């Protein structure tokens, strides 16, 4: 837990990876392009003292991850969000199997989320059942832009997706993390469009839909959906690193989220190893909406920060939260 100025924060990092983008695992130029793109995100918004060399960024060790998250990084519990990308990486980029190695070794530290792809049809439903049993899944991460042969993506509106979501409900998988990416078929539409989440969230009111990265670059569409569907949440990863070099932009995003969603439906995530949780948590706890913007957006309270950093996600995943009384 992070203690600062007499306050204690229970921190759930809702978006972490244990990926393998090493040269040996890259299947083609897309795998190379993918990790280079991630590295540009890392360089764009990380403070200088948190910049990694590229070789470590491609493949980091278990020890390194444990240190960055739990020893230095103030994180109490971290949630693995797999991203398969089997067309780009021989063994996948960040699969449930890879994450499970860590999650099974440190069961108190990690929550392991699964994944499904509706294009797997009946066989995928059976796999989901096996994964749910083996890993006691409470959540899945869906990446609709995943390539597969000629297919460059899928939609939450697909009839098969509904069958998978029904299965999730039956298996007690309540948290559906949705990530949008740039390569969805058909290419002529807006690939980042989050409107398919709207339909699914309405059709499955007992499931929680956490839109990762706030649906960026479609913040406005995401907020609009979240206003309609109370079971839609916003994952802060990718947006929160603005807090360091572009705090006024971050303040605007935060102000909009507090206005449209409120403090109970925003959840923290670092997207480790793109960014390290240590500086994100510390900077966020010290953050306030700048004075000249408070007329528009108000302020953010300590209680709200505690919810966003951990308590909201703890609620979604039934985590035991220690007493967060004031210290000292």
């Amino acid at each position, binding site marked *: 837990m992070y203690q600062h100025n007499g306050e204690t924060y229970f921190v759930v990092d809702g978006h972490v990876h244990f990926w393998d983008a090493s040269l040996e695992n890259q299947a083609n*130029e*897309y795998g190379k*392009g*993918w990790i*280079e*793109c991630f590295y*540009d*995100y890392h*360089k*764009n*918004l990380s403070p200088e003292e948190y910049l990694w060399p590229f070789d470590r960024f491609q493949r980091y060790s278990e020890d390194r991850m444990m240190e960055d998250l739990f020893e230095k990084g103030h994180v109490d519990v971290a949630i693995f969000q797999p991203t398969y990308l089997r067309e780009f990486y021989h063994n996948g980029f960040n699969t449930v199997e890879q994450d499970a190695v860590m999650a099974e070794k440190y069961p108190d530290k990690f929550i392991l989320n699964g994944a499904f792809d509706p294009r797997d049809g009946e066989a995928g439903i059976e796999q989901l059942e096996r994964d749910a049993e083996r890993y006691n899944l409470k959540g899945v991460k869906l990446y609709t832009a995943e390539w597969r042969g*000629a297919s*460059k993506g899928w939609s939450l509106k697909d009839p098969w997706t509904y069958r998978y979501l029904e299965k999730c409900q039956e298996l007690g998988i309540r948290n559906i993390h949705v990530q949008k*990416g*740039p*390569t969805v*078929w*058909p*290419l*002529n*539409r*807006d*690939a*980042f469009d989050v409107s398919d989440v709207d339909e699914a969230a309405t059709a499955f009111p007992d499931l929680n839909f956490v839109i990762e990265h706030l649906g*960026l*670059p*479609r*913040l*406005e569409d995401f*907020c*609009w959906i979240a206003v309609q569907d109370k079971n839609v949440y916003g994952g802060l990863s990718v*947006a929160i690193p*603005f807090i360091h*070099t*572009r705090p006024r*932009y971050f303040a*605007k*995003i935060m102000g*909009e989220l507090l*206005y*449209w969603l409120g403090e109970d439906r925003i959840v923290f995530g670092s997207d480790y190893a793109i960014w390290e949780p240590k500086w994100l948590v510390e900077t966020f706890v010290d953050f306030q909406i700048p004075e000249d913007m408070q007329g*528009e957006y108000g302020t953010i309270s300590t209680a709200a920060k505690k919810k966003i950093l951990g308590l909201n996600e703890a609620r979604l995943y039934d985590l035991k939260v220690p007493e967060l009384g004031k210290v000292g």
Partner: protein
Amino acid sequence: MGTATGALRADEVREAIADVRDPELDESLVKLGFVAGVDVTEEDVTIRLLVPTYFCAANFTWLMAEDLRRAAARVAGGRRVKVLLGDHFVDEEISEGVNAGARFQEAFSGLADDELDELRVHFWRKAMTARQWQVAEALRARGWSLEALGGARLGDAPPSIATSRLQELRALLGVSTAPDSPLFVRPDGRPIPVDELEIRLEFARLTSVSLETNGEYCRGLFAVRYEGGAK
């Protein structure tokens, strides 16, 4: 083709493409720095285009390339106009398709089921919404109440970059640009009823924040990729 008429300088081409915009951000490609070079010879005008990431959406990137080519063609004096996209996952497909004057669907056979016109209109509407917020802010700063804004006409908008872009977008979308037409309209161009104005303006603010934030993200990534660092 082939016989160029008259001399042409690269800066004239730059001038001709100065207002070609990133369709998502509604910002000038030249100002964003995405136009990496313009070369003019007796026979060709070549524009080099770079984008912030390897995986920037193919459809938006196509629109940028196509719009650059069209704008340059207006001053090319019969020269062949080529746009060369680089460092992108489908850079060859886009360059070849656009330079051959192909339709998007032909270049991405099997991966697209229609053309990009609808997408373009979708983003003009977003941009128009965002500009309405900026104009409303300018009027509020001059003491206009929400009630007064409900009756505002296009001609009431104070001269500014936001106002002139708003006029351009309205023209592109077929929304009236007459000074006495309603200033605040829905994305489909119909006037906003007074009882909806507050929430619609708040949503316009959100849209403006979204465009600004995306622009800042893209500039940062582009700087990291090509200019040796963002800060």
